[in-house]
């Protein structure tokens, strides 16, 4: 059983339609239930226009749950783009095949230098990203990168093209702690509109990637949809929440996190089909927390500084800072093209200070690959 089987049977469109017509009583019922008892319809009610009018109530409930589970802390990570080479045509993406941009793939030595710079800035958790190029950034390249970077940084996750279970197993053994896969959009028709060429055209293969990564032993699994690609956006939000809950049940040893990225301007010149307002996004963060009390909720520097800071108390557990989306950007900024424009351009220290001013302590380090019983990154003394 994979998530694609569950999603086919799930009433996502019906739930999104229900949200549009939800009443105040539906919202009250959803709010009054215990977190673990909330179902798909409760989640839809929490995402509804009726609930939008009661966002302060949602925020308070979300804050209470988050505080109990995660305390007054926020985890910090940095994205490290290894390559912007890509054989896939995603019409909204700045790395898409055919775009005339400055392409670059870091050598392992260059990647290590980037990681050293990030370590000096305080980071102990990196998310490694690439475009989708089976030859240039294949499993062997990623294995090498993971092993080399693991000597500098204790926690490494990946957000790269999707792999088969055996390939994920190799990456986990090489020190990959977490796997993030954005489905982009969970709507099969919209997905087909955007993904015109390359292996990424296979919707179901991508949808079930996190099941394969989970079976391969990845400790952290991250889901997300690029909000704005599909109209109505609530359908993608509902499918994302269902995906997270399904993975939580199947991979009870893994931590599940959810991202809610809004599509950003890039070299692709793409215009979103649906507009997700700041208020909508804040409501979504609360609804995700109320539906998934133990999930990590990730907010990247796609969003503006003041908005990001204000969202943190509502349920955010993981955030990035000082991010570059171009390969080599930490040591040689601007030489290659970035995937999208970063909105919050503050340094990690500035973000950390802003969070402290709101009463949140930054957790820079929360894991150590040396704990992991694999062959990777274990010091010789142990």
């Amino acid at each position, binding site marked *: 059983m994979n998530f694609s089987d569950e999603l086919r049977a799930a009433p996502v469109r019906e739930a999104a339609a229900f949200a549009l017509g939800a009443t105040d009583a539906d919202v009250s019922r959803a709010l009054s239930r215990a977190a673990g008892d909330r179902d798909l319809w409760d989640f839809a009610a929490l995402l509804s226009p009726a609930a939008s009018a009661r966002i302060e109530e949602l925020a308070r409930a979300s804050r209470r749950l988050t*505080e*109990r*589970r*995660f*305390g*007054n*802390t926020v985890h910090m990570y940095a994205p490290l783009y290894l390559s912007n080479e890509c054989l896939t045509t995603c019409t909204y993406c700045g790395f898409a095949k055919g775009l005339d941009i400055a392409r670059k793939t870091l050598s392992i030595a260059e990647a290590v230098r980037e990681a050293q710079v990030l*370590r000096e800035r*305080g980071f*102990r958790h990196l998310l490694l990203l690439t475009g989708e190029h089976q030859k240039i950034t294949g499993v062997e390249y990623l294995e090498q990168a993971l092993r080399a970077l693991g000597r500098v940084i*204790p926690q490494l996750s990946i957000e790269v093209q999707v792999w088969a279970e055996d390939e994920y197993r190799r990456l986990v053994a090489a020190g990959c702690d977490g796997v993030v896969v954005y489905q982009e959009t969970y709507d099969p028709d919209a997905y087909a509109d955007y993904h015109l060429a390359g292996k990424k055209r296979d919707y179901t293969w991508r949808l079930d990637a996190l099941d394969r990564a989970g079976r391969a032993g990845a*400790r952290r699994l991250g889901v997300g949809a690029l909000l704005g690609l599909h109209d109505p956006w609530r359908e993608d939000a509902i499918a994302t929440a269902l995906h997270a809950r399904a993975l*939580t049940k199947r991979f*009870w*040893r*893994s*931590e599940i996190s959810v991202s809610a990225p809004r599509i950003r301007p890039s070299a692709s010149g793409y215009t979103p089909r649906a507009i997700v307002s700041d208020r909508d996004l804040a409501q979504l963060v609360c609804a995700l927390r109320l539906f998934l009390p*133990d999930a990590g909720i990730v907010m990247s520097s796609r969003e503006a500084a003041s908005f990001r800071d204000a969202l943190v108390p509502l349920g955010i557990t993981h955030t990035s800072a000082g991010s570059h989306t171009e390969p080599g950007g930490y040591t040689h900024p601007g030489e290659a093209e970035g995937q999208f424009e970063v909105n919050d351009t503050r340094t990690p220290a500035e973000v950390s200070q802003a969070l*402290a001013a709101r*009463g*949140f*302590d*930054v*957790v*820079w*380090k*929360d*894991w*150590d690959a*040396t*704990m*992991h*019983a694999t062959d990777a990154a*274990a*010091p010789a*003394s*142990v």
Partner: protein
Amino acid sequence: MPAEGGTTDDHLVIADRTFASRLIIGTGKFSSGEAMRDALDASGTEMVTVALRRVDLDATGGPDILTFLDRDRCLLLPNTSGAMNAEEAVRLARLARAMELPTWIKLEVTPDPRYLLPDPVETLKAAETLVSEGFTVLPYINADPVLAKRLEEAGCATVMPLGAWIGSNLGVRTRDAIRIIVEQATIPVVVDAGLGAPSHAAEAMELGVDAVLVNTAIAVARDPAGMAAAFAGAVRAGREAFRAGLAPARSDAEASSPLTGFLDPMAPVG
């Protein structure tokens, strides 16, 4: 164990070490290192547990929780939180020793990242290995009296049964099982996890446990230092109540006239 012979000393002794405070504090979830330090000061604690996964294990410097701890006053108790099996917990303990951290280990093997419930099989395995390697082992367990005895036999310095799951603030939900653990134990019993209010801590101490460990309830209080002081007071009160001998609770009223008066030959008949 209650002190005997009217002595006023009532110290907690674990392995070969004596503690005046029976409140152990966890260091996660505080809003800042300063808030944590103030809470530790206010609590009078002498034992503080730190997650090894949050410490820079290669000691190359960097932002680090250890800089906020007064290690002259408090024993630093490294914990293995995040370990999913015995092998990983043992690895972490060895890393702590390699870093010259104390060889006392709070053993946590919690494969489930949501409720963070301890795996009894892997915990026992890890405890056996760590004891044989000379560690002082304080295992976090579900409130399982048989497991507690098995860990005692394995040479653990304490057992640390949960009151409720970590971060839940539900109180001593495992009360009846903890009673049995206390009754049977020859090593100190520490209630760890689930204590959400000073009254919960007092309740645990009244049951005769030797100490409690608190984190979330202090860390996320509006005034962590104030809450730490409140827990310290409750732990003292609960301990004193246990030593003074609690009167048994009664739910029914006592009959006002004797039921067996007719057995007394001097009693007037009729």
